């Protein structure tokens, strides 16, 4: 399998990564090799009847009582933010691009 330049750019857009020209070229080559290799799981044949595993240890729904408790104070939650205004996180305008 080989990933085209357009496919790499498409995936990068989905992942919100802005790749340099070098990276586009490198990923197209590297990801092709990685996917050639991961596709060896196809050697295992038909897995139609196998249940997928998303969680490996059997646990039932873990519920707790819904009781109010203190959370982080606002100023603490904002302390590491790059930009703060009016008690919130300030970001650049979504602009014409829509911001995603």
């Amino acid at each position, binding site marked *: 399998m080989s990933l085209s330049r357009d496919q790499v750019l498409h*995936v990068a857009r989905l992942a919100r990564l*802005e790749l340099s020209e070098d990276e586009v070229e490198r990923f197209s080559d590297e990801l092709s090799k*990685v996917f050639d290799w991961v596709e060896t799981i196809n050697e295992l044949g038909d897995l139609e009847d196998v249940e997928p*595993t998303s969680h*490996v240890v059997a646990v039932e729904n873990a519920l707790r009582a819904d009781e109010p408790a203190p959370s982080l104070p606002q100023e603490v*939650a904002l*302390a*590491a933010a790059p930009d703060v205004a009016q008690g919130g996180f300030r970001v650049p305008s979504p602009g014409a*691009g829509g*911001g995603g």
Partner: protein
Amino acid sequence: MSELLELTAAQAIDAIRRGEVTSEAVWSAYRERAAADENNSYTWVARPEAPAVEERAPLAGVPVAVKDLFATEGIPSQAGSKILEDYRPPYTATAVERITGAGAPILGKTNQDEFAMGSSTEHSAYGPTLNPWDRTRVPGGSSGGSAAAVAAGTAPWAIGTDTGGSIRQPAALCGIVGMKPTYGAVSRFGMIAFASSLDQCGPFARDVADAALLLGAMVGKDPRDSTSLGLPEPIGTPSATDLQGIRIGVPEELTGEGIEPGVQKAFEATLELAKELGATVEPTKLPHAPHALAAYYILAPAEASSNLARYDGVRYGLRAGADGDLLHMYTATREAGFGPEVKRRIMIGTYALSSGYYDAYYGRAQKVRTRIAEDFRTAWDSFDFIATPTSPTVAFELGAKLDDPLAMYLNDFCAVPMSLAGIPAISIPNGLADGLPTGFQLAGPAFSENRILDAAHALEQAIGFDGSKARQA
């Protein structure tokens, strides 16, 4: 090197209890050594003043090194990434809270592959960590800083995380003990997420008894992590000196071919020791294990691509491209903040989850995961433990695999099947090959931590590994 620094953590605790040494003296000895560390094991070292500790507490003030993947309140928690440079979280991970609550103060934060993605600690924005046995070589990864710190004796013990071998492989390459417990045994709250269905916290130590003591301080259900579990019994003090009646299975898929001859030879020698101690050792099969690594490199990057979506320059960490619109700020921040391996994994994961490919990759890999867990369950009908070499190789030279992702991924060939099955596994030092440490991995069924630790203790006594050479420098 002083006699104090040659004590195991458990011995240091005993010495403090008997009044032969103070916890302040232990703190200062290690603090000085950590501050003078020449292996780049640490990304942050505590101030010289000994913190107030309760010497009657279970860990008696013997300090611990903490992988930088754990959130620690007010202390830099950078996960090896530029995107979290100097980030000081407003809260502390449960595992760390439990250790400090048991009386072990934080000595330092240790270097790691960025977001725990790597097997050499070279993928750190803060430079590679060096292997104390040979500084031209890697310590393994991703918890390489914790492993190197314990091996070099700049920390008495440490904690790390293991998603697909990130505790066991560096423990093996640095000649120390490392254990990944059953998935859920230790809370993941405050552990910066890589692949949530696989990430597990565990101890690094000079010997099995120390590993048990540190693990025992961390385990238990946590209301802040709904996947955490209570173990059926507390972690005990391992004391077995034989393996009478123990049945060990050796999977042909994870031994022999693909393992360096020196590593395989050391592994086989320890299987002979196991027989002398009374165990039966027989070959077995884990038919799907050869496909574990490929399945892992779909599942882990897929989960990572989702978990790492949170680094967007909005709430904490790096922000770049603020002069443009919001989308530009997101992409410029991520481009500037993530290193090459993290970008690679995000790309792999995003592609594997993208429309039209989900069933062929992620869905299928989850089914392979089921098959791998079933292989182990079948093995437990006939065996108490599965044994393999921990890593197929000894520590390799810095840079040797940096430009070849697939060669780097193969380091975890023997470690990943246990991660996918969520079962506990330990790596113990297994002698040297060409002057470098090798590791012996012992895995058991879910919740068999105490039995694994006991068997590892018996083997450790028989192997008689001497790790003091790495502490001389």
